[in-house]
């Protein structure tokens, strides 16, 4: 999937993360991470972000993260929201149902 426009999801509240997703000219994923828990969870956060991008099959993106100690589930949800906005798609709510049935 291709990113059409820049999009933001999330807030700068404690325990949240603000994610900005932008199109990227060059090939690949570029992540800029600013986090209050970077020392302990930096790689874990990047891993979650890459997983979310892979879920939507996004190859090229610039991701700017301002993390205020969000839990993994929050990061995932904010990523999904940012991707839907950036790609101008609606979230497929049946996706997880299908996974659960398998």
């Amino acid at each position: 999937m291709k990113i059409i426009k820049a999009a933001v999801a999330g807030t700068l509240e404690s325990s949240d993360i603000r994610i900005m997703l932008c199109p990227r000219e060059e090939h690949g994923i570029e992540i800029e991470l600013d986090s209050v828990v970077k020392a302990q969870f930096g790689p874990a956060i990047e891993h979650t972000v890459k997983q979310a991008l892979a879920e939507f099959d996004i190859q090229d993106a610039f991701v700017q993260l301002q993390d205020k100690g969000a839990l993994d589930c929050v990061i995932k949800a904010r990523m999904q929201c940012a991707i839907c906005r950036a790609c101008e798609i609606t979230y497929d709510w049946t996706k997880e149902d299908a996974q659960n049935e398998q």
Partner: protein
Amino acid sequence: MIKNSLGRELPEQIGDYVVRPYQTAQGVPPSTGPVVTRRTAEHRQRGEEKLQPTLADAIRAAGLADGMTISFHHSFREGDLAVGQVLAAIRSLGIKNLRFAPSAVVNLKNFSLAEYVQDGTITSVEASGIRGELGDGIINGIITMEKPAILRPHGARPRAIEAGELQIDVAFIAASAADSYGNCTGQIGANPCGSLGYSFVDAHNAGRVIVLTDTLVPYPCCPVSISQQYVDYVVKVDEIGDPQKIGAGAARLTKNPRDLMIAEQVADVIAASRRFEEGFSFQTGAGAISIACTKFLADRMKTRGVTASFALGGITAAIIEMYDAGQIRAVECSQSFDAVAANAIASRSGVVEIDNADYSNAYSKGGFLNHLDFGVLGALEVDTDFNVNILTGSSGQMMGGLGGGPDVAAGAAISIVALPIVRGRTPSIVRHVFTCCTPGETVACVVTQAGIALNPRHLRYEELKQDLRNAGLPLVAIEELQQLAQSITGVPQPIATTEKVVAIVEYRDGTVVDVIRQIKNNAE
């Protein structure tokens, strides 16, 4: 490297500091000799003046010179305006290489303490904690000091002073009212901070004592906390501090449902104990959970029809309310945590100022803690050995101070640590605390929103277990709490440190519970 009994790895020597490893909470035996003091006999003549026109004059008169030790109290907490003025005067006199030994370094924002370290005015620090720019700078290696900071709980500072390990050359005491002969207090005047509990030991043992006040009263000052017989000089300044900032944020009742839940469970634990009876005693402190807990405790006392003999330590408006309602016979204030508590001493006969040494020093003939039933403590981290971290944040910041935590844990019959299992994405129940401050063996009980864990190694484990079971309070193992926290946050990567020791954490007896090593710069 040596290991103390808590399994913490310590160097045998750090510069000229010889490490005595922590052994037990009981502590090493006291020295049998007389206490060490710098106080000198004087022979003041009628008509001799103590009042000095400026701080610089007083500092010069006191003979402050390079390499000496200076001290302050932190009773104004972040509202303090005295330390900045004194350091500016010291700098103007060109005095360098001082050991800075206040009761605590709080996050003072009205001047930059770090600049006094960088320009060599201050070259070493000994306090109960170093919050703010300086502490963060030291732990991250942005600010380098030749000697590691020595951090001592409130009870250990008077011990170190009287043992000759921390000899104070000049003590600066900010008092909200003083007369020109040095009688002074924190209870009245334009800016009262309440108890001057931390300053007694300084006044009694420093080589020279300078009192700063913004309210000069006619002789004799009444009431008196620190007597004229200990004071060398008095200086009038514009302002010593802002009492409204003493309890910034701490004095309000939290609405956070998680914190309220924890606080209520702490009250449940206390109410379930056989020690919760007429004449019991307690200390709760000033955190959000602590204040809420005080309120819940007041309700439980009313329901059960019991009153307390005394409340101890840092006192809040919530405690004063209980006193006014007849629920507490005596309030022993080593510190006043908000403006209400600060004003309460002068107006209530049962609310009294006490010497911090009498509150927390294990090495004297006194010690209120030896009579304390319940002590409620906050924490940044607790590990599965019940060791408590109250100094360092998980990302390597200096987040807090030791305060009286280690003292209260060791002194109270039942010590309760109250904290949420996670804060943001940071687990607070962990396998190993980053910095050990309070030995696990002194912690009876950990209360979280996910359950109450009792420490099987605590002296009163069987008693408390029986009492909580009888009250029908469910118990969990500390390991379960750790697992639950980890399942929510994920497994954090350990913080990488260098070998350089930037701070030494002493226990009540002067042995070393842990050291803080400089955080490795994780810039890519």
